[in-house]
């Protein structure tokens, strides 16, 4: 190969190696910056394994929606509309196959399982990464919070045009990372 071409290709590759992660950052920053903040109740999850590696797996309800599932495949995008209760907590409401208009409250999810007229979805914000040393403590705190009815575990999620970013997980209004530090 011509030396010049090698250098051009290498430069292009270097650029791509910046742009791909850069684009990921850009997209997420835009959601955090301009997206609306929603608060979701985190559901108690299997207490034997809430931690996988260095992240907390969050579980939300409902996972299953009744919908016209004909033509749907696993992995297809679907749209979940939201409604907010008087406490400021958002709840998933309906599953739509077409993207709602941009002023609607909704997020984009993927079909995880299909069962007749029932569609199970994968929430796009069900992972909360933690620092390694805090992980075990966070796990304990996480578990305790579920036995304490007064303390709600809430996921803070920013959503912009259906795209979501999980910003924080709070128990009784305090960030899980902060709680694990104490």
């Amino acid at each position: 190969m011509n030396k010049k071409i090698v250098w051009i290709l290498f430069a292009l590759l270097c650029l791509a190696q910046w742009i791909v992660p850069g684009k990921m950052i850009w997209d997420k920053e835009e959601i955090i910056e301009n997206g609306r903040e929603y608060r979701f109740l985190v559901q108690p999850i299997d207490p034997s394994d809430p931690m996988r590696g260095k992240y907390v797996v969050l579980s939300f309800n409902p996972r299953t929606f009744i919908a016209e599932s004909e033509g749907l495949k696993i992995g297809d995008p679907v749209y979940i509309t939201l409604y907010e209760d008087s406490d400021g907590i958002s709840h998933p409401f309906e599953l739509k196959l077409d993207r709602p208009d941009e002023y609607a409250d909704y997020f984009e999810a993927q079909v995880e399982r299909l069962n007749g007229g029932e569609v199970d979805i994968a929430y796009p914000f069900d992972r909360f990464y933690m620092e390694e040393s805090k992980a075990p403590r966070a796990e304990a705190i996480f578990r305790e919070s579920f036995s304490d009815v007064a303390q709600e575990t809430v996921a803070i999620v920013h959503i912009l045009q259906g795209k979501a970013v999980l910003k924080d997980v709070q128990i009784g209004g305090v960030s899980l990372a902060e709680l694990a530090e104490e």
Partner: protein
Amino acid sequence: MLTKEELEELVSAGIISQEKAAEIDAYFHQKESERPNRILIAFGILGALLVGLGIILLVAHNWDHLSRSVKTMIAFVPVITSQVLVGYALWKGRHHRTLIESTVVLLILSVGACMALVSQIYNIPGTISTFMMTWVLLSAPLVYIAHSSMASLLVLLGITYYGMDVGYNHRGGQLPYAYWGIILVLLPYYWKLIKDYPKSNFTVFHHWFFPGSIALTLGVFGAEQEFWLFPAYMSLSVICLVLAEKVRGESLFQNGYQVLGFAGVFIILLLSTFDFFWDEVREMDRFFAGREFILTLALSVLSVIVSLLLKNISKSSKWIISGFLFLTLFVFGRYFPTIAQVVANLAMMFLGVFYLRAGARTGRLAKMNLGFLIIMAVVLSRFFDSEISFVLRGLIFVIIGMAFFAANYYMMKQKAHE
């Protein structure tokens, strides 16, 4: 390479002049110095792997007290540093293999670490296969830009992981097309490696990684007609053995095709000596249908094409014929399962005796013991699906075991005698 004495001999015999002798000597010296030092390359790559993996582990710690913007900036530091290093290696020139291979390893691992860190910072749940695919796409160009064998091997690893993850775990029965695409992209590099450096360690590794990767991923074709995968794997093993005739290394380690191909033939033939195997074949809903069936036919035809392309049909015809015989047996077994099972048992025994005899005749212990191994595998397997008394089973084993010892002892004595 000629020794000094040989050169002097040629000069004194008047075949070449003193000047020519000096030129030849200089040529070989030059060649020697150009040949990369294998140990240096190995340590260079090992060092780069350790540093790269170290960076990934540091990233995995997930530094909570750093702000988001600091973390994102840190994510790019290893990438940019390694890019500069690869650039420097390219500037120094292609023949600096150690420098190129080790910096490329560093860059590939840094790119992975960077993406992992970004996923952590923004809590991106994405599947591992999407992550792998992006990583592979950002690394694959290095194979050709830097002529890097390590890049090729790492991309093969990544794409195999991707293919298996998509094919076996997700989205029921979806074929990982991208896997085959990347394999096709890597093939020209592999071909060049075989042509230019047939004896290089990197080429030898490719002889293992390529068939290994395809063998691991072929199973994703399995859907409703999964049992057709057995003759498909048999055909793949035959293709490996056809290629093995071409590769022919000095040791088994140098010929991954031979080892993998033979292992495939051995395992599938052994499975077909069991009655459950033929029960399943008989109970298949439809027979001549499904993508697995087409895959089997395609691979069988491919084995012939490969052999024709390599012009080694005379050497490899035994494998190709065996492959087609197995395919015929498979079809035959659909209607006459018991006969097919008996034939499979006989074929396996024949193979065992063949290697036993060939090994004994040529005095090669490994070959002879392979024969023993095959016979023992068949006998052992028959004890699972038959109702022979324990006494008889015990006796048969004692006899085979004694024959095994006696034959080995005899052969070793013969060798010592020689």
